C-alpha cells in the first residue's frame, strides 16, 4: 500500500511541470493547518489530491499539482483544457450531484473540499482526509484576506511556500493599487443573468469591501441589499440612483459562451438599455466587466485580476 502511494508520488512529481524534482519518494510526514473546522493534521505533499474547491484550482495549477479528480463541470472554459481532457483526472461531478463513487475510486490522500462542496464535507471525510480552507464571507478577516490565508495554507501543504508568497504579493499589490485609485465613487454591483441585470451585492460585494467605493444600493450599512438579491431591479431604479461606476459579473458569458466565441451579453444589455442613456456610467463609459471566468473561479487570481481592472479603469479617469 505504502509503495503504491509512493510510486504514484514519484510519477506525479515527474509529470509536474514546475515541481522541479526536489523531493523523490521519501515519506513526507504531516503538517498541521488551520481550516474552517479547526486545526487539522494533513499529509505533507500529498500525492493524490481531489480538488473540489474551485477557488483553489488556479493556485494548484501554479504549484504544478495535477489532481486525481476534479469537478469538470465547474472548470472554467479557458485555461483548464488540459484538466478537462485528461482522462487520468476523474470527474467528481458538480456540487449539486457529487460523484462520490468516482472520488472514492481514486483513493485520494487528501480532498480539498469546502465552498460549493461545503455541505458534502462529512460524506467526503469518510473517503479521505478532507479540508475546508475555502474563503468565506463569514471569515473574521473578510473574504479577500481569507483568499490569502487559503493560498498560504496550500503552499504549506504542498511545500510551495515561496510560490504562495508570490501569489499573495500579487494580490496585495493590485489591491493596494485599486484602493488608491478609488476615491469614494458611487458604484452599482450587478450580475447579468438571462439578459437581465440584477443586484449582485451578495456575490461581488466582497470585491469592493477593501476599496474606497460606495455601493448605491447599500442601505446604511444594513444587509438589506443582499436579502432580495435575486428579486429584480427595474432599470429606472438604477437610472435614478445614477452610479458613477458599474461593476458587472457576467454570468451568461461564463456559462453560455460557446467555444471560440467572445460572448459579452452583459455589454449588449448595458449598451442597449435606453433607460440608462443619461446616466454617468454610460455617458463616461465607466463600466467594468469582470472576466468571463470570474463566476467560475472566484479565487485569489480572479480577485487579483479584478483589482487590476479596477485600478486601471479608475486610474485612467483619476
Amino acid at each position, binding site marked *: 500500500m505504502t509503495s503504491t502511494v509512493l510510486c504514484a508520488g514519484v510519477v506525479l512529481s515527474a509529470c509536474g511541470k514546475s515541481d522541479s524534482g526536489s523531493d523523490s519518494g521519501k515519506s513526507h510526514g504531516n503538517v498541521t493547518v488551520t481550516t474552517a473546522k479547526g486545526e487539522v493534521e494533513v499529509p505533507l505533499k500529498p500525492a493524490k489530491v481531489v480538488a473540489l474547491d474551485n477557488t483553489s484550482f488556479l493556485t494548484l495549477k501554479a504549484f504544478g499539482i495535477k489532481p486525481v479528480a476534479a469537478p469538470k*463541470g465547474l472548470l472554467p472554459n479557458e485555461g483548464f483544457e488540459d484538466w478537462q481532457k485528461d482522462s487520468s483526472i476523474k470527474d467528481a461531478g*458538480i456540487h*449539486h*450531484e457529487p460523484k462520490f463513487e468516482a472520488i472514492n475510486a481514486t483513493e485520494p490522500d487528501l480532498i480539498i473540499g469546502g465552498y460549493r462542496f461545503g455541505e458534502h464535507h462529512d460524506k467526503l471525510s469518510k473517503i479521505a482526509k478532507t479540508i475546508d480552507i475555502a474563503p468565506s464571507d463569514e471569515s473574521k478577516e473578510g473574504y479577500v484576506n481569507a483568499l490569502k490565508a487559503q493560498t498560504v495554507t496550500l503552499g504549506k501543504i504542498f511545500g510551495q511556500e515561496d510560490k504562495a508568497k508570490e501569489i499573495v504579493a500579487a494580490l496585495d499589490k493590485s489591491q493596494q493599487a485599486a484602493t488608491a485609485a478609488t476615491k469614494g465613487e458611487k458604484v452599482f454591483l450587478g450580475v447579468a*443573468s*438571462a*439578459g*437581465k*441585470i*440584477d*443586484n449582485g451585492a451578495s456575490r461581488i460585494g466582497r470585491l469592493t469591501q477593501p476599496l474606497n467605493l460606495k455601493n448605491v*444600493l447599500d442601505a446604511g450599512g444594513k444587509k*438589506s*441589499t443582499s*436579502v*432580495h438579491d*435575486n*428579486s*429584480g*431591479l*427595474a*432599470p*429606472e*431604479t438604477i*437610472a*435614478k*440612483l445614477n452610479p458613477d461606476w458599474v461593476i458587472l459579473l457576467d*454570468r*451568461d458569458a*461564463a*456559462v*453560455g*459562451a*460557446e467555444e471560440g466565441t467572445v*460572448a459579452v451579453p452583459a455589454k449588449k444589455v448595458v449598451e*442597449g*438599455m*435606453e*433607460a440608462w442613456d*443619461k446616466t454617468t456610467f454610460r455617458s463616461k463609459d465607466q463600466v467594468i466587466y469582470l472576466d468571463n471566468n470570474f463566476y467560475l473561479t472566484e479565487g485569489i487570481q480572479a480577485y487579483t485580476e479584478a483589482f487590476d481592472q479596477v485600478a486601471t479603469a479608475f486610474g485612467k479617469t483619476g
Partner: protein
Amino acid sequence: MRRLPILLATLGVLALIVVSLFVGSYDIDLRSLFTDPEARRMFFISRVPRTLALVLAAAAMAVSGVIMQMLVQNRFVEPTTTGTSEWAALGVLLLTLLAPAASPLLKMGAASAFAFLGAMVFLFVLQRIALKSQVIVPIVGIMLGALISSLTLYLASTYQLLQTLATWRSGGFSSVVRGTYEPLWVVGIIVIGLYLAADRFTIAGLGRDTATSLGLPYRRIMFIGLTMVALATGVTTVVVGFLPFLGLIIPNLVSMARGDDIRSNLPWVVLSSVALMIACDLVGRTLVAPLEIPATVVLGAVGAVVFVAMILRQRKKAHV
C-alpha cells in the same frame, strides 16, 4: 343601467393602471410629466411598457385558462396546472442550449411549439385515464408538469444554466422596458380572437358529442383553441416568466358569480385578471423598494391559497 357594473369595474381597473404608471423609483409625477422632458422620457421607456406588459400578460393567461377549461371541460385546468408552461420553459431552455444567441422571437416560437406539444400530451394522457373527477385532472396535469420541469432542471443543472433558469422563470416585470415587451401585443390579438369565437368555445365546452351534434367542427375548434393557448403561454413565458394560477382562479370566480357564458364573462375575466396582476405587482414593487419582489411570486402566494380553497369547496360539494 344594465351596463353600470362593468362600467364601474372598468373605472376601477383604470385607476389601478394610473397608480401603476406613477409608482416607481424614478421621480415622475403629473407635473414633472409635463415640465421635465427627462421624466417624460423615462415614463415612456419604463412605466408605460411595464403597465402594458402587466395588462397584456394578465389577459393572456386568464384567457388561456378560459379556453382550456372549456376544451377539457374541467374547472381546474390552465397552463400552469396542465404542464403547458413547463413545456414552454423546456422549449426555451433547449433553444438556449442549441443556439445561445437566438433572438427573442425565435425563443417565443420554440416556447409556443413546445407549449402546444405539451397541451397535446396532456390531452392524450387525459383520454387514457378512467377517473376524470374535477380534482384528478389538474393533479394529472401538475404531475406531467413536474415531470417536464424536472427534465428541464436536470438539463439546466448539467449545463450550468440553473441560475439563468431561475432568473428567467421568476423574471416578473421588473426588467420590462421599451423594446422588451412588444411581443405581448400578439396576446392582445388572441384575446380579441377569442371574443369573436367565444360562442363556439361555449358550445365546445358542452362536450364533444353535444358540440358535434350541434354542427360544430369540434376538432378544428379544439386545434384553434390549443394554438391560441400555446401562443399566449409561449410568448408570456419568454417575456415575463410563469404567471401561476391566474388563468385558474379568475375565470372560476367569474363563473361562480355569473355562470358559464364565455362571451359575456370575458370582459369580467380580463378586467379582474388585470386588476389582480397590477395589484400583485404594486405590492412587489413597494414592499422592498428600491428592490422588488417579482409580481409572479406574490401572485403565486395568492393563487395557491385560492386554488386550495376552491378544491376544498369542490370536494365538499362532491360529498353531498
